[in-house]
């Protein structure tokens, strides 16, 4: 990194230095001088609209806004001079002139930036005698969003929300209408807002204009305690603040503020699923079912029944399988892996989410994948079948910022046109399952162009050749193509200077859980764990249970039943088992079938560290008062020591886990030198195919607002669920299917009835269906995230 020149300046008599380009507001903040801001935000481009940050610079004729002025050599800045104080008082007075007296009923009271700034910097005595402007006419009352509360009267026109919508969320949903004192923020023609980063405008709004409508009037901020935690719904793994009220109940979730390395933003999933893990659906008492009796126990008493159950599992080690899902912390996955191998001595340690390419990605790219800084400083971003908006919105947030704030070029490839495609320069249609082919043809074209390539493809090749710093992001479908795709992308990356790779899997702590539990990965001290006879995916376990070679299963994680593919088949298989031990946070048929069900903490309550897709290590404190019992890690540690393992403290587990990650990172770095695997990329066979006559590729994914079924458990996001089949308009016309018609989807021998929505955003020959719009029974044909299925559409199908 080249040294950025430093500049010396004086603020309020304190001599300081800052890098060239740093704004005055930031330079003052670093030495502890607080300059009030409204329109300025550390993650948004500077605007200078509100004028509250005016400061006096010696020899400058007028006061300047500190949020738009970069530091200059020899600047002498005064933030408390008489002129500045008077200017601030004036600005405050103007802002409050039209502001309604809503403080007693405004949710933002107590955490309102307007209140705080006006109290500290205002005159304290009002001189306003006239009538305040009022938007409470028919336009002001239109409900713009089912989850956000809008009160236009309170707006101070800082335009943070519109800039967030444009620069950070990328939706361009809201803007300023009218002029002067009639200016108001609204959507175009008052349409409903449907952003997957819903709620960020509320997060940045300094007043109570836009607030979280789901917690309206529920509580005041001084009754709430923020608990640092990490969201486990997708692999963005955003740091969150989970706010609990005086009774310990989770009331709302917000993003952490004022922390340099954290996003100040969350997506709709993380924000509005705060109530998903409350109420009757939680498993709060353990159950133990023996042949005679079913008894319940509290989590605090769960140790002894669990010890007995594990001893039974350990006796039969060859026929015991351990399945975990991605909604567990690194420490928990590590302990599961360790117990499975050292105590239960089983070769079957299987993640619920099947990502065949994930092990080779982790082997080769741990620690050297693209980070958020790489995305923000890239000048070319290539999204290869990565519907970021749907799967991992907050990684999409970095892409949006790179494009909208830094001017990066964006190209998208794949069978779906995502929201990012609309801000990209071109979209290249590519069949599902053929991402590897695309990458290989790109590598070829870099050396010699083919004449039959499409215009978009050529644009992409040109861009790649001319890029200074490139980031390639691929989603869960390319990952499902297996190690071949990883080899292809590694080959591409090695041929393009200064390029970084990022794979974005589905699920929560997918990367961390796989690394720490060691499925398919080598773990020092545990030898090679991809044993010859071990199952590696959940279908193998299912087959083995049906054959009878596996008689005991330990399922550990959160919301497990949803992750089991083809639940009816599993259900019949489970009936054959001798022991079914389930650690879960939610009640389901699975937990009622289990011979031992142990309640564990949910995704808001857990304690531990999480590895995000961008390689960030984030820590959840697990300090929620209402949490069910102790954290899983501590329970597993106690279990281990009861079963003969050494006693270990939680703190030492966290450091072991950290060291294990460093070990993987160092191995991946060594792999860079190993050129052999990169060269073998071209030899893998093509996996892209033909859907067959009358058939289409059926793409399965999670709906815009949802992460599996977890978010459906809450009350708020369910109203956003899209249950339609998205179909290409040209295909629909050919098959004479109109918009909103009902069709039958024939997948294998199963049939599903769905309504159709025609769109141009999906490739001809493909259609998209949201997984969580179907019940577990309806989706028994589902083979795993990322695997395209072929389906036949039968029009005119009744239910």
């Amino acid at each position, binding site marked *: 990194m080249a040294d950025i020149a430093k500049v010396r300046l004086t603020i309020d008599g304190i001599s300081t230095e800052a890098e060239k380009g740093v704004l005055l507001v930031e330079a003052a903040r670093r030495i502890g001088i607080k300059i009030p801001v409204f329109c300025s935000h550390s993650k948004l481009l500077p605007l200078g609209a509100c004028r509250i940050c005016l400061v006096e610079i010696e020899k400058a004729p007028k006061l300047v806004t500190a949020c738009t002025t970069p530091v200059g050599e020899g600047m002498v800045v005064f933030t408390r001079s008489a002129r500045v104080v008077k200017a601030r008082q004036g600005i405050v007075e103007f802002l409050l002139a039209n502001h309604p*007296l809503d*403080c007693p009923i405004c949710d933002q009271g107590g955490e309102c930036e307007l*209140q705080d700034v006006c*109290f500290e910097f205002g005159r*304290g*005595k*009002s001189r306003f005698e006239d009538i305040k402007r009022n938007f409470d006419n028919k336009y002001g009352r239109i409900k713009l969003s089912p989850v956000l509360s809008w009160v236009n009267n309170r707006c101070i026109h800082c335009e943070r929300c519109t800039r967030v919508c444009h620069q950070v969320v990328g939706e361009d949903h809201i803007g300023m209408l009218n002029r002067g004192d009639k200016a108001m923020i609204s959507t175009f023609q008052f349409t409903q807002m449907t952003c997957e980063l819903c709620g960020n405008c509320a997060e940045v709004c300094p007043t109570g204009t836009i607030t979280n409508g789901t917690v309206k009037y529920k509580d005041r901020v001084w009754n709430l305690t923020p608990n640092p935690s990490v969201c486990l719904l997708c692999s963005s793994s955003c740091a969150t603040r989970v706010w609990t009220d005086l009774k310990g109940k989770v009331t709302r979730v917000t993003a952490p503020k004022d922390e340099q390395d954290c996003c100040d933003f969350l997506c709709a999933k993380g924000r509005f699923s705060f109530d998903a893990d409350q109420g009757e659906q939680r498993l709060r008492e353990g159950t133990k079912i023996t042949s005679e009796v079913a008894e319940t126990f509290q989590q605090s008493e769960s140790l002894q029944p669990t010890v007995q159950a594990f001893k039974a599992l350990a006796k039969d080690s060859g026929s015991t399988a351990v399945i975990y899902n991605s909604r567990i912390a690194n420490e928990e996955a590590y302990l599961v892996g360790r117990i499975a191998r050292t105590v239960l001595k089983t070769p079957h340690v299987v993640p619920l989410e099947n990502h065949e390419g994930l092990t080779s990605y982790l082997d080769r790219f741990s620690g050297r994948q693209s980070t958020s800084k790489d995305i923000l400083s890239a000048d070319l971003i290539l999204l290869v079948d990565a519907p970021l908006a749907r799967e991992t919105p907050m990684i999409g947030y970095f892409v949006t910022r790179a494009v909208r704030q830094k001017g990066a070029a964006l190209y998208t490839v794949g069978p779906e046109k995502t929201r990012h495609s609309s801000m990209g320069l071109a979209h290249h249609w590519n069949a599902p399952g053929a991402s590897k082919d695309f990458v290989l043809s790109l590598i070829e074209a870099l050396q010699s162009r083919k004449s039959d390539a499409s215009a978009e493809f050529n644009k992409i090749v040109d861009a790649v050749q001319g890029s200074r710093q490139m980031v390639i992001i691929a989603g869960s479908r390319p990952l499902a193509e297996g190690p071949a795709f990883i080899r292809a992308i590694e080959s591409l990356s090695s041929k393009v200077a200064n390029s970084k790779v990022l794979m974005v899997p589905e699920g929560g702590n997918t990367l961390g859980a796989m690394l720490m539990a060691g499925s398919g990965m080598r773990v020092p001290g545990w030898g090679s764990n991809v044993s010859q006879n071990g199952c590696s995916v959940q279908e193998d376990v299912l087959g083995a249970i049906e054959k009878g070679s596996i008689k005991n299963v330990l399922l550990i994680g959160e919301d497990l039943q949803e992750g089991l593919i083809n639940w009816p088949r599993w259900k019949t298989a489970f009936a054959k088992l001798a022991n079914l031990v389930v650690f879960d946070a939610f009640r389901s048929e699975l937990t009622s079938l289990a011979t031992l069900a142990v309640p564990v903490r949910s995704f808001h309550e857990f304690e531990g560290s999480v590895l995000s897709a961008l390689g960030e290590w984030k820590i959840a404190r697990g300090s929620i008062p209402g949490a069910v019992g102790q954290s899983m890690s501590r329970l597993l540690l106690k279990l281990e020591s009861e079963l003969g393992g050494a006693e270990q403290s939680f703190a030492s587990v966290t450091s072991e886990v950290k060291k294990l990650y460093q070990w993987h990172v160092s191995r991946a770095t060594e792999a860079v030198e190993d050129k052999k695997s990169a060269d073998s990329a071209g030899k893998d066979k093509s996996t892209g195919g033909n859907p067959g006559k009358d058939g289409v590729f059926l793409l399965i994914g999670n709906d815009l607002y949802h992460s599996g079924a977890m978010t459906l458990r809450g009350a708020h996001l369910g109203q956003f669920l899209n249950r339609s089949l998205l179909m290409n308009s040209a295909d629909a016309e050919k098959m004479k299917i109109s918009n909103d018609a009902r069709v039958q989807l024939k997948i294998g021998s199963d049939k599903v009835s769905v309504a159709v929505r025609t769109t141009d955003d999906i490739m001809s020959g493909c259609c998209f269906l949201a997984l969580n719009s179907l019940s577990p029974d309806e989706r028994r044909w589902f083979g795993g995230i990322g695997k395209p299925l072929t389906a036949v559409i039968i029009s005119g199908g009744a239910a």
Partner: protein
Amino acid sequence: MISEKIPTSVDKFKAISSDNISVQESDDPGDRIVTLNMGPSHPATHGVLRLVLSIDGEVITEVVPHIGYLHTGMEKLGEYMSYHQFIPITDRMDYLAPMLMNLGYILGVEKLLGITDEIPARAQWLRVLYSELMRISSHLIWLGTSAIDLGAMSPIFYALQDREQIMNIFEETCGARLTSTYFRIGGLREDIPDTVIPMIEKFLKDFAIRLDEYQNLVTGNPILINRLKGIGCLSKETALSYCCSGPVLRASGVNYDVRKARPYSGYEKFKFNIPVYQEGDSYARFLVRMDEMRESATIVRQAIDAIPAGPVKIDRTDIILPDKHRTQGNMEELINHFILSCRGFNAPVGEVFSTIESSKGEFGVYLVSTGGEKPYRLRVHSPSFLNLSVLPAISRGSLIADIVAIIGSLDIVLGEIDR
């Protein structure tokens, strides 16, 4: 100490028992000590004070006061409340002189904020006026209860009736008879109504007559003199080493009154004397307080005659609450009211120790602020606590009846001791 052998219970028992009973009597004086529990629920302990007396017959050999029965964690509460929110808590400390408690705390906060010199003159004058009325009220109740502890039944009725007049004055001013919360950080809660001055004038007129009556009825009373003279002698050195203050200290010959030593709230503008007596016994403490009532009446007289005009609140919108009617139509006032009520003002970093002369002695606070809306530490300097600590020293060797007199003369309030 005792000169003759006081008949023990054993002797008396022998005198009345029949011949068959043989009673062992030991000569060891230690065996004669009986432990007697006095309190905490006792009419003569002036609150919930528990005294464990070791008595040899009627003579006290040891007194161990046990306190804490009225502890409500006020100092700890102070760490969780804004500075303004804590004022009603101070009312409950010395509940017989709440306005003085308010003043002691508020002067500390004002010193921390650095606004002591900006308090308007009218506010300071009225603070003095009400402090002295409060002192009279506190001494009146002391007079009544001490007298009734000693057996004189009549004075309490007269004393409480005078106190009623003062209570009525308080009610007229701020709505509360006892727990006033009238003084606020930056001045007073609101200006006095016009009806109050005639009430105070009337009270002063009546009180002048009453003071003379108390002088004759009580001070010249031979029974009282016998009960109090020579009882609970506190030497000057002992008083100073135990850190006593107020009338207890001044009765032992130390001329120390905070109003003269470190004048606050404009006391330097008033002419008054400090009564000091040399004997240090209960009677001296009695006389000090009687004289103090007279001096306080003088101060009230001077105060009434020359109340300055002007505002009663400092003009700092970031410290004091705005007028309520303004918050219902004006944005800045509403915001200020919201922030001040829900959070409080931001105090500068610092620590102060500030005391006043309360009716019991030197009362004050030690405030430590690390910035923010709540104090880091709020330590209350309580005169009754220190005055009570001197009790064992001055009551060894007296009779049980004398303990009652001594406690009365110390004039302690358990609310202030226990907090």
